[in-house]
């Protein structure tokens, strides 16, 4: 099934793809050769995902063409989407064979044969998953491996991945690239869309930069000149000078307490202590980073502080004032006056994708904005400050790119809390997940300016680089506990060990 069949050469020439009246891709030309990892980078909405989808035949092509040259029986192109396309109630094996099920007579499912083939494939590709695990219980990294296996299972020799590392921890990302490199070495055609320049420089062999629907640069990667390359790529992505890196602001002399959490415990439905006595404090004007591997209590920490977990025990104080557990809407409102939270899963807890950008920007504030004029001003201000693109309050939020959706939830939280007299702290879950360099810079500046204005900022992020740049202190969350507190200039491997729950220095 894998063998040494070389993957196809995918030649994309003068490609144009249109959604309605909007040209997602205007003029893109790139050749994807087998045997190397090909990275495609660019800002949100630059047309990277669409390019992949067109290459894989998911979207109709308006102009130009995609030519797939190669062995006829190895020309299948598989795509791993940004959002996993797995049935969460199925086992890994069931998902693996879904749509390409081996059958016995009368169409009975032949899972035994499927298992043999799956095991063979796992051995060949070096990707391993527990075939009997229910998909919803699988970790993100494992689900991703399953997606790739699924593509290979169908005999694809070209694998296109749309932002595969957006949801992975650094260690998982490294493993993924090792796998991809192995597949490439065996002759597969691999293309990866990503936002992380460092990944491109460390792992890719060839890179194509897209900007506003066009391919603006394409070159092979010379790892000996990584600094110059990074600079050049950033310039190509932004179409101009890269933004100055943001730094944590200096701390005030005698900072007051902004957010104090003590002995926070949350037990989930299956009896697992997802938060196991979390204790941390953030001073006014301070940015504290929370590092950790996905699924170690990050999401629950954000939700508990926001007052969305009714069963949480422990104390939470904002601005030095202890807050009661949320029992009523009044408790909730009182907490919201002191605190703004951006939840890490913006699609589940943050956005109404079918509602307009304007509605999303004032969600929850209709009782606080006194008139429609106030509301309009707030919407315009938030779109403007955060450079939400397109700057159209009427457009459905779901039609915006991921980075701009993220700007919506950030703009709503930060702008609202700044206007509140009782403001104390903000908690930001994965503030720049799936966000391009330009949008990330906007968001980072906003985070720093929130701290400068005296808010305590807790940033929960899977992006270590981001935490190291922004934070005054980094705490590490592992197994629902804070296991280490480290200065932001700690080396990656020290933080990494703490993230894995090993004893830190």
């Amino acid at each position, binding site marked *: 099934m894998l063998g040494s069949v070389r993957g196809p050469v995918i030649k994309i020439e003068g490609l144009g793809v249109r959604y309605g009246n*909007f040209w997602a891709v205007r003029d893109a030309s790139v050749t994807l050769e087998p045997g190397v990892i090909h990275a495609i980078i660019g800002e949100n909405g630059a047309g990277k995902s669409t390019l992949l989808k067109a290459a894989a035949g998911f979207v109709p092509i308006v102009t130009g063409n995609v030519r797939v040259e190669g062995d006829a029986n190895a020309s299948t192109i598989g795509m791993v989407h940004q959002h996993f*396309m797995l049935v969460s109630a199925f086992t890994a094996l069931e998902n693996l064979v879904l*749509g390409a099920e081996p059958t016995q007579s009368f169409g009975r499912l032949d899972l035994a044969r499927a298992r043999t083939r799956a095991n063979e494939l796992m051995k060949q590709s070096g990707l391993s998953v527990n075939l009997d695990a229910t998909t919803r219980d699988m970790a993100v990294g494992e689900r991703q491996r399953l997606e790739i296996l699924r593509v290979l299972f169908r005999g694809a020799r070209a694998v296109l991945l749309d932002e595969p590392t957006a949801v992975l921890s650094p260690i998982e990302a490294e493993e993924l690239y090792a796998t991809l490199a192995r597949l490439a070495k065996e002759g597969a055609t691999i293309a990866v869309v990503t936002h992380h320049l460092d990944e491109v420089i460390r792992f890719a062999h060839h890179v194509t930069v897209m900007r506003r629907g066009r391919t603006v640069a394409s070159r092979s990667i010379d790892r000996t000149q990584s600094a110059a390359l990074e600079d050049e790529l950033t310039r190509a992505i932004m179409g101009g000078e890269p933004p100055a890196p943001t730094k944590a602001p200096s701390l005030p002399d005698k900072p007051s307490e902004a957010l104090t959490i003590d002995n926070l415990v949350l037990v989930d439905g299956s009896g697992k202590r997802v938060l196991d006595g979390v204790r941390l404090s953030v001073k006014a004007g301070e940015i504290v980073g929370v590092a950790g591997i996905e699924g170690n209590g990050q999401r629950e920490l954000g939700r508990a502080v926001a007052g*969305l977990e009714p069963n949480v025990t422990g104390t939470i104080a904002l601005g030095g004032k202890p807050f009661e557990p949320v029992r009523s809407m009044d408790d909730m409102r009182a907490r919201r006056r002191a605190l703004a939270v951006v939840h890490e899963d913006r699609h589940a807890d*943050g956005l109404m994708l079918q509602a307009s950008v304007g509605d999303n920007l004032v*969600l*929850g504030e209709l*009782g606080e904005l006194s008139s429609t004029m106030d509301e309009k001003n707030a919407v315009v201000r938030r779109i403007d400050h955060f450079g939400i693109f397109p700057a159209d309050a009427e*457009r459905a939020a779901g039609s915006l790119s991921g980075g701009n959706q993220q700007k919506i939830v950030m703009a709503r939280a930060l702008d609202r809390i700044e206007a509140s007299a009782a403001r104390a702290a903000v908690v930001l879950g994965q503030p720049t997940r799936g966000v391009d360099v330009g949008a990330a810079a906007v968001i980072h500046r906003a985070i720093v300016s929130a701290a400068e204005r005296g808010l305590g900022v807790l940033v929960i992020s899977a992006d270590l680089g981001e935490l190291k740049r922004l934070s005054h202190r980094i705490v590490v969350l592992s197994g629902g506990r804070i296991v280490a507190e480290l200065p932001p200039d700690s080396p990656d491997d020290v933080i990494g060990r703490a993230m894995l729950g090993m004893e830190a220095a």
Partner: protein
Amino acid sequence: MKSAHDIRAALPIVLAIAGGVLLFDLMAFGFGQAPASALRMAFDGTWGTAYGIGQVLFKATPLLFTGLAFEVALRAGLFNIGAEGQLALASLVGAVVASKLPPSLPAVVALPIVLCVAAATGAAVAFVPAILRVRRGVHEIITAIMVNRIVDAILPWALATVLGSTSLRTADIAPGAALPRLERVFPALTGSAASFAFPLAVVSVFVVIELLRRSRVGREIRWVGLRAEACRAEGIAVEQRLLLAMLLSGAVAALAVSSTALGYKGYYELGLGAGAGWSGIAVAMLGRGSAMGIVLAAVFLGTLEQAGLAVNARVPKEAMDVLEAALIVLVAVATRAAAKEEAANKRDDEPFEEKPARAAATEEVAR
């Protein structure tokens, strides 16, 4: 450019109606009637004469209320399929109260009293599925079906025993509680049962849809329907909004009593207005959320009902029921097709599809 798109979007609807006419012809032919003359008869009984128009409006009136009722709940993400029971009990209670009012009471006092009592009754019936959904997470469809059955059982029993009526009807309502017929101002409509309940219904549709669109409560109800979790995270009282939407839905459904007991019969009898609750679902679905859409859908269904009565002598009513159901399906398919066409024209930018895993999986399979 734009008008070309509009025409393309309207095409499925035109085709659906053409298909309906064809189906009607076939049916009439099947029952041994000349299709053209049966069609002529159906037209004369509906839009061909002033009386027919009045009857269409009369038939459309309760559907406007129940269609609006379903729409209100739907916006909050709830399926209020209990309109049938809400309307029935509200009709009984409203008619009983109306019959107890002193005959001398002027309409400006009597009508609001009766309508408020009916609306409150409808809301109370809707409260049962609403509170069970909000507090206990019981699906409102199941509870609403059961509440419908309970109301079905209570009505004849209450009429026969508590109210002591042998003919399963209430006493006549006080004159002040009756809604005048439209023929009073439009003499051409003489003989038809259309009453001022029709303009009341149309105004209600536009007012309520506008409130949903612009008022704080209305917008929050819609937002909760779009993503309750995000609303909860941003401090919106999700449960309260759900409850409110369901109560409002029940109250609006109950107002359909204005066109039946108050505007037409002058009393409530068992079965009066039955079926309107169900047809309301079709109205809301065909209306696709706009006030104009709901009005058009209600008039469309009203036309079908009236056409069925008009040709009853030649084509059995059951055949017309079949036609009505088939036409609703046709129009539903057509409006979906039209909506798709519109969406394709509107869609911009990189789509970030949020597909449920299963839909995505089936798509994968289809490939």
